[in-house]
């Protein structure tokens, strides 16, 4: 479903990604872990081309996005992303936030998109907030709206870029519960997170990154109980006090 081949990304002198290869089969729940600056956000942003790789190939759903004149916008319709800072549209109501892109981008009828939006808002437990504006919601609620907005695109792939890192501690759980619930379904998920509990509970596979490389790749059991690299062990010892 997602294939990264020899992907590198440089920001000036900074090498954010160094020759990364990664293949994510359909339906997999992949969690990417790593210290800050390890390149995990850059990696996930290369999947939907919010970052253009400096070299290498990105293939999503059978389309090579790094090719010249690739239909990037078309592929993005089925690759939803949830951001660390929510990035809801502040001038639109919650309902409009969720329904807008299906109507404008996909050409879904307004009534149909609105109805679907209400269904997804209900699923994230926010149907009573449909007419509010994002600024009137708590961080946790905003992120759940962002998830509903992503779901209303009926994506094949969902990318989560540190979805709980900007939240107050007491709101992390309500967002994680929604994501864990989603992970029960058949959708392909890539989640960059610092939430080890989530990785243990919901992931099929954990990838550990450091200095722009993938240095550990395996099941959650492998990762937490039997890590191979010293760097991984050091990281885990710091994070699982």
């Amino acid at each position, binding site marked *: 479903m997602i294939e990264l081949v020899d992907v590198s990304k440089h920001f000036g002198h900074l090498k954010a990604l160094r020759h990364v290869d990664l293949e994510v089969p359909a339906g997999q729940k992949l969690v990417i872990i790593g210290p800050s600056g390890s390149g995990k956000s850059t990696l996930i942003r290369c999947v*939907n081309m919010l970052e253009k790789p400096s070299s290498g190939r990105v293939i999503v759903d059978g389309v090579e996005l790094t090719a010249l004149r690739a239909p990037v*916008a078309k592929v993005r*319709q089925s690759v939803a992303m949830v951001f660390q800072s929510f*990035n809801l549209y502040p001038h639109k109501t919650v309902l409009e936030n969720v329904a807008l892109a299906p109507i404008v981008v996909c050409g879904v009828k307004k009534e149909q998109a609105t109805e679907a939006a209400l269904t997804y808002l209900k699923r994230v437990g926010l149907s009573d907030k449909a007419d509010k504006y994002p600024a009137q919601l708590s961080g946790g609620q905003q992120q759940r709206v962002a998830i509903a907005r992503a779901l209303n695109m009926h994506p094949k792939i969902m990318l989560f870029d540190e979805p709980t890192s900007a939240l107050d501690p007491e709101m992390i759980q309500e967002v994680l519960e929604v994501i864990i619930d989603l992970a029960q379904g058949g959708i392909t998920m890539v989640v960059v997170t610092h939430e080890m509990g989530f990785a243990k509970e919901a992931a099929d596979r954990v990838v550990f990154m450091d200095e722009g490389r993938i240095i550990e790749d395996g099941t959650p059991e492998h990762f937490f109980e039997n890590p191979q690299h010293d760097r991984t062990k050091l990281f885990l010892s710091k994070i699982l006090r």
Partner: protein
Amino acid sequence: MSDLIANIGFLQQGPFAIPRWEALFSNIDLLWQGTIVTLIVASLGLALALVLGTVLGVMAASHWRIPRAFARAYVEFYQNTPLLIQVFMIFNALPMLFSGLFIPVITIGILGVGMYHGAYISEVVRAGIQSIGRGQLEAALSQGFTYIGAMRYIIIPQAMRIVLPPLTNQAVSLIKNTSVIAIIAGGDLMYAGDAFAGRFGHYGPTYVVVGLGYFLMCFPLAMLARRLEDRTRVL
């Protein structure tokens, strides 16, 4: 009462003498006609400036190299040459370039102020777009919006709130700048006033009233700009 007035010298003779005021007000129709021309040039010029400014502003804020360079060049050219020369160019040079071309003077005024203020408005629009956080564009792109679609539905509606006060100030400048067409016999308020004043030497009252006319057109907009500024500060 008349004794009182008789003792005030400057109302009896000189540039502001009462007969001059009387002459002006019995010909006030001339100024009304000029005002209508000014309002037409200002409103159509503003429409042109808004369209140009929005398109150029989006181009200037984009990551496409050639449109961005074009917008830059346009803005620098129009911001760094006098409006008067631009109007003279359209008035004198264009008809020489395309012989037989006749551009009505009102159209020259609309093109002149429209293109000139289009440059300024594009800078306002560009700054407005760039003030919207990068995350908004990324969220829109990640949902499959094209760049233009993201601008239209997500970025520009948000930028509009920020941009409205400086935009209103541009409208005020534009109204005042329509007066340059007086120099090419534009038939606008400035021209009408000047033509009347010159005929009999009633400069004093005429310029006061013409100035007041511009003030009445601009002041409500300036107030509106201040109101909008206060509102954006609250938001």
